[in-house]
């Protein structure tokens, strides 16, 4: 928005101020506040530049009115708070809800309504506009509801036991640590025996067995 900030804000209520300051804050601070508020309205997809400028000024003027009473707050903080308040109040009016009660609920509902009513596409000029609003706009805003799922029709699914047959015996074995260990050792031993038989002639196998028997016999003599 290419408006001169000082001229735009030279409303009588801001009062006389030393050069380079507005409402007791340096102009740079108000520029930063301007940017922040403008960013938020951008985030709300306000693309109409004239409207955008007007809305930002509206918020800044409210912030400036508060500025003298709250010197501990920066212009940006004041503007951001006013921006939040202006938008929430307006949501309260449009949606006919009291802004004081759970403000974050109202704010969420309002923003969602803006989106679902397609404010950025169809109703930009109505945003933050005082009443009366077009009936169609009010209807679209008030009836906006994001339905993520149909009504629940809760049911309980229960897994049926699966009789695994002979495999169940094997899996039961695995739950017994000692048996499992013995089973693994036996399997390994059998595997080695099988490997040996496969990779040697039966004659060799007999020879090895004989040698082993002799070795065992010698061991005890």
């Amino acid at each position, binding site marked *: 928005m290419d408006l001169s900030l000082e001229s735009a804000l030279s409303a009588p209520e801001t009062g006389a101020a030393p050069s380079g300051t507005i409402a007791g804050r340096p102009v740079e601070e108000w520029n930063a506040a301007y940017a922040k508020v403008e960013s938020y309205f951008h985030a709300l997809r306000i693309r109409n530049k004239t409207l955008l400028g007007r809305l930002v000024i509206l918020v800044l003027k409210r912030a400036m009115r508060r500025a003298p009473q709250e010197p501990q707050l920066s212009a940006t903080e004041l503007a951001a708070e006013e921006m939040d308040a202006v938008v929430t109040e307006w949501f309260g009016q449009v949606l006919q809800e009291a802004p004081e009660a759970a403000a*974050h609920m109202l704010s969420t509902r309002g923003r969602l309504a803006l989106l679902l009513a397609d404010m950025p596409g169809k109703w930009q000029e109505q945003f933050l506009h005082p009443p009366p609003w077009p009936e169609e706009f009010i209807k679209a805003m008030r009836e906006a509801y994001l339905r*993520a*799922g149909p009504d629940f*029709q809760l049911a309980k*699914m229960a*897994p049926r036991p*699966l009789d695994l047959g002979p*495999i169940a015996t094997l*899996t039961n074995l695995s739950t017994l640590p000692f048996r499992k260990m013995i089973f693994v050792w036996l399997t390994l031993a059998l595997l080695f025996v099988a490997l040996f038989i496969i990779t040697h*002639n039966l004659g060799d196998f007999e020879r090895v067995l004989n040698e082993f028997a002799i070795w065992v016999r010698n061991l005890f003599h």
Partner: protein
Amino acid sequence: MPAAAPELSSDAGQDPHLRKYVDRPIRRWLRLFVFFSLALVLTSAVSMLFADLLWRSGWTSSSTVLLILFVILFGLISIGCMHGIFGFVLRTFGDPDRITRLGDFRAKSIKGVSTAIIFPTYNEGVARVMEGLRATYVSLERTGEIERFDFFILSDSTDPAKWVEEEQRWCEIVRELDALGRIYYRRRVSNEGKKSGNVRDFLSSWGRRYRYFIVFDADSVMRGETIVDLVKLMEAHPQVGLIQTVPALVNAESLFGRIQQFANRLYAPVFIAGLNFWAQGFGNYWGHNAIIRTDPFMQYCDLPHLPGRKPFGGQILSHDFVEAALLVKENWQVWFAYDLEGSYEEIPQDLISNAQRDRRWCQGNLQHSLVLFGRGLAGISRIHFLMGIFGYLASPLWLLFLLTFNWALWTFKRSNLSIITVTALNPFIKLSGTAHALLIFAICMCVLFVPKILALIDLAFDRERRLGFGGVQRATLGAVLETGFSSLHAPLQMLWHSKFVATILLGMGVHWSAQKRTADGIAWSEAFRQHWVHTVIALVWGVAIWKLDHPTFWWFLPVLAGMLLSIPLSVLTSRTSLGSRARNLGLFLTPEETLPPSELDTLRVRMALQEKSRASQLPDASIAEAVLDPYVNAIHVSLLREKQLNPEYRDALIKLGVGRPEVRQLGEKLLGQGPEALSTAEKVLILSDADVVPWLHRQAWVRPSKSLADWWQTAIGKYAR
């Protein structure tokens, strides 16, 4: 009350054609007997030839191992060959015994029938899921039957970025299609039970509202008419519990993807017709692009955990096969609607992604060995399990076959004996030893290639399909090149699958780090990292065989070549530029490329636009959007509030820690230090709290800049002009 399969004889409105599959089991067993007997006869005959060859060169203990492995491996390829032959015959002479021919289902009305179309998703590409949904929705809208369907995006995403993007895009699509109250979104608080748990959760919440549900994958698309046909088929055949379509692979861009897509489109119709011959109403479920009767599914298909520990115990990973088997066990029929066109899915675009997917499937399929002997299951369901198991077990068996052969050769060479071939045991074999070996090799090649040749002949007789493939000549050239690629790819798959089987049996995981990709495909460095072992194996193995016996080396060369060339093969086939060059040359064309259906055309255009508009994003951009963007924040909070209406979700949120003061403290940390100071679980916790998220929105916009982390300044800066 359990959902019992309807008594056919008591329902006058039943299609009499279907009765024979229940009332006449002899006919079913005859089909099975004929099909598998022929495979068995072929296997036996060739195995005898092989045994004779082993006999001629002197029987050793390794000959026994080789023969056993040969029988198993040849048995598997002969079953594949039989699928091709039976499928070809059925397609040529007409197959009356398919679900779409068992009565005039198209005359059925689906008025008053409610069907849910569900998209279970888990950290998937959100844009692709939503655009697939959009294409399906728009197509269904054109049929005039959209009122009978509800769409559900069932998210299990644990990545906060995906979660927020899903909500955002869901809201966009609902608004754009004016589909509020028709397209729904639900994210589970915890993804217990993975995909089957996700579906179960949907059924527990809304299943009773719908007579049928159609399961989509994240990359599925279906034509509206096909969906309506599926519902009509279910209406026409009340004893059918599930109908599985055969999704066509589409939208591949890389060379690898296009080759796989081409092979699928060319060979699958013949193979599945063969599969349907013996499966009939005892078919299988592949997890998506299928319609399911809700009631019996809810009744019988909530899967128990298997006893024992991982990898076999615990949750059933490949739940689809088991669910089909359980339906069949309870006398519900499961069919393949293999001739219903308009069902699509996508495939991995490179060798490495393909292997990653195989790793997941491998564990699930091996786990079926526990269920294989489950009491009460139909014999045909066990065959489905067995085929799935051997789909992966065949690789280590093949590797063992090759190694045993090498071992036998080494033992023989070490003995310094010379080989003296004796005459064959069978007096009719009057061949030299070499000619005998060549004969077996030729038969093996025939068994492998006959289905491919039959698929080409089938194509030549079908004018419409022929045009879709760019003509018979191009299709033939494509099939030859595809066969060449497959012979290089097969040894790699052998190594990969063997590793998967071994690691799964040992209870070990396989670590896949994020892929390094270029705009055109896999990066060379990534290919080197994934394939250097394969190359080394090929080199060592090749040198060893060369030293052992030169002629044997040449026999092994095709196996070694795939491993040796794995790095360039992986990189080059992942290239989209080569994929499009092949397309320009008319190679590997598929009907969906030549004459794209409107659903896929729209999908492709929209996805291309999304790619272009993808801007460089702030790290943790999703957090920025969920907190700062007034609309994204409002959608997110509103969905969180709605979630609390479900008592189960409410309990899960409480269990997660939502509502505790610590969440607000984490929110302060997020504001003060930025998202990099939080873990993913902490981010998820914050985003799950319906009070903290709107509070963060206000704080991030209202607080002075100095009390916010720099990251927020950058994020807010994105909204400035």
